[in-house]
């Protein structure tokens, strides 16, 4: 049977349960797709034998009946997740050869559900980037191309390998992580669905930390339903992550009725940027019309501190990163620099980090050290924390006025070409996150849904932002948007 790798989770689940296909057949189709995908550079490690072993076990479990939804479903795992015995490097040379002795909580839950691991997925180094170009493995490549062009495009970042793999049918779904937009922006660039859950909904334990107060793992899938199924499997309290929420997890898939009559959807005026491409404006207006036609009420809202989200983020995230990345010192794992005669441990630390970290990571670690240093802590870090309070309050005020969800563009443009931003200053790259970063600062759930193509045939996405812990309602609105938009385009296979 061919083409099984193109199935959604929901369809594969039904076919596995009805014994129309086996987990081994499904996994073999995915392994073959992965083996033929080197031009996309989506996988940093391939684990086909491990996948087949897991698939056999899944078939046995399916044979006994009562298997979980993800039983036998082949997935790709972002390189940021620690997977026992399998290289987990955060796409950094400083973790060269690192094979964890433990398994992250998210992947533990996935394997306990019977899911199958196809391999590890490319990403920006330590999840710092918006184009996958900071990866020590080289950039992953977007399966999509501009019409009439074979110029390689970015799949976005930091979860670029995850996005390329899901979009190119190199897995049924993948894990991502999102600190400032790293699930939602690549999902939009590749025509897939990406969900950043409420901060605390999913355990961060065993995920290599970037900015701990902002990081959250989530699903990257072909449909909204698949994201709901995936989130069901990974959400929930974990005693090993003290910031994970000890509260009931609803059935996200059961919430997908498509009925959004009476829901109030806000359009924030501050997201209407000067110089925003007309295509993005139209996409946004069309999305609002679709939700209105489905029975929702569309209202204008204001999030007055939006403009300050990016600068606040680029103080707070590097500050947390400089602390989290202090552990990479060449002592316990990964790379250690070679020393000359007469040099000691101080040279070892500084040279190990100069050799092991790429330029963007070095930049952020140094910015973080600066904004936390004596004399500048109050002016930068403390002030950014105060602005973060105001950004969160903006959302609280809107939700208190009766709004159920907020609709925005997911990205300010379609996918750009690899290398096109090479000479731009770092701040220009940071602008990719302009619509997504507020959600991390406020700890809210967000979802990116593909709803259209631009004039060059590239996918564009819209973002829905939900209330805290209301992923189920947010996903139902996303489901209604998905049904109305009817986005079914796929990249033409060239790799």
């Amino acid at each position, binding site marked *: 049977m061919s083409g099984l790798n193109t199935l959604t989770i929901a369809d594969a689940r039904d076919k596995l349960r009805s014994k129309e296909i086996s987990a081994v057949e499904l996994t073999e189709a995915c392994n073959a797709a992965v083996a033929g995908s080197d031009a996309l550079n989506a996988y940093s490690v391939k684990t086909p034998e491990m996948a087949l072993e897991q698939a056999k076990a899944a078939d046995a479990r399916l044979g006994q009946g009562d298997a979980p939804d993800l039983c036998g479903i082949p997935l790709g795992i972002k390189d940021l997740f620690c997977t026992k015995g399998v290289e987990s490097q955060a796409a950094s040379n400083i973790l060269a*050869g*690192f*094979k964890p*002795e433990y398994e992250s909580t998210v992947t533990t839950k996935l394997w306990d559900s019977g899911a199958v691991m196809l391999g590890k997925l490319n990403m920006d180094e330590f999840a710092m980037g918006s184009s996958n170009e900071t990866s020590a493995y080289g950039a992953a490549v977007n399966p999509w191309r501009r019409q009439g062009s074979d110029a390689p495009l970015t799949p976005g970042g930091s979860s670029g390998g995850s996005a390329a793999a899901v979009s190119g049918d190199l897995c049924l779904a993948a894990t991502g992580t999102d600190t400032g937009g790293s699930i939602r922006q690549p999902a939009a660039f590749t025509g897939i669905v990406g969900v950043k859950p*409420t*901060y*605390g909904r999913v355990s961060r334990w065993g995920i290599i930390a970037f900015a701990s107060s902002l990081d959250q793992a989530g699903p990257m899938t072909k449909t909204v339903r698949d994201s709901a199924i995936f989130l069901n499997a990974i959400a929930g309290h974990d*005693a090993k992550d*003290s*910031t994970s*929420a*000890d509260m009931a997890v609803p059935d996200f898939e059961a919430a997908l009725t498509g009925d959004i009559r009476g829901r109030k959807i806000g359009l924030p005026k501050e997201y209407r940027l000067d110089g925003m491409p007309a295509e993005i404006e139209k996409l946004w207006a069309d999305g609002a019309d679709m939700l209105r036609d489905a029975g929702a009420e569309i209202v204008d809202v204001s999030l007055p*501190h939006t*403009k*300050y989200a*990016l*600068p*606040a983020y680029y103080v707070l995230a590097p500050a947390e990163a400089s602390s989290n990345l202090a552990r990479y010192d*060449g*002592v*316990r*794992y*990964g*790379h*250690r620099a070679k020393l000359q005669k007469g040099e*000691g*441990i101080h040279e*070892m*630390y*500084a*040279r190990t*980090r*100069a050799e092991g970290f790429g330029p963007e990571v*070095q*930049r952020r*670690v*140094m*910015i*973080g*050290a*600066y904004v936390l*240093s004596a004399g*500048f802590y109050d*002016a*930068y870090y403390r*002030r*950014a*924390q*105060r*602005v*973060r*309070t*105001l950004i*969160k309050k903006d959302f609280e005020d809107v939700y208190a006025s009766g709004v159920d969800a907020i609709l925005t563009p997911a990205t300010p443009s379609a996918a750009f070409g690899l290398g096109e931003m090479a000479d731009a*200053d*770092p*701040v220009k790259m*940071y602008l990719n996150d302009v619509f997504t970063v507020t959600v991390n600062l406020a*700890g809210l759930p967000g979802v990116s849904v593909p709803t259209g193509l631009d004039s060059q045939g590239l996918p564009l996405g819209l973002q829905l932002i939900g209330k*805290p812990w209301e992923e189920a309602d947010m996903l139902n609105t996303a489901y209604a948007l998905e049904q109305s938009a009817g986005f079914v385009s796929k990249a033409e296979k060239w790799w």
Partner: protein
Amino acid sequence: MSIDKDTARKVAHLARIEVPEDQLDALAGELNGILGFMEQLNEVDVDGVEPMTSVTPMRLKRRADVVTDGDQQDKILSNAPDAREGFFAVPKVVE
């Protein structure tokens, strides 16, 4: 606030990242660009606003003060660049 070459050297030291002397000027320029972007935050009136320390209004859970794990020296040392006799080994530190 602007970063000069000496400040760049100090920041690199704080971050424990070796930066060659001839690259410090370029580094100072880059950091200034990013810090300039952050200066926008000075436009915001933050008087009386509490700094956010936790995005979700919940108390950190406490766990029982008991041993839950341990006795896995081999696993802990398995990824070390240099491990000897059950320890992480580093260059001599005595000054």
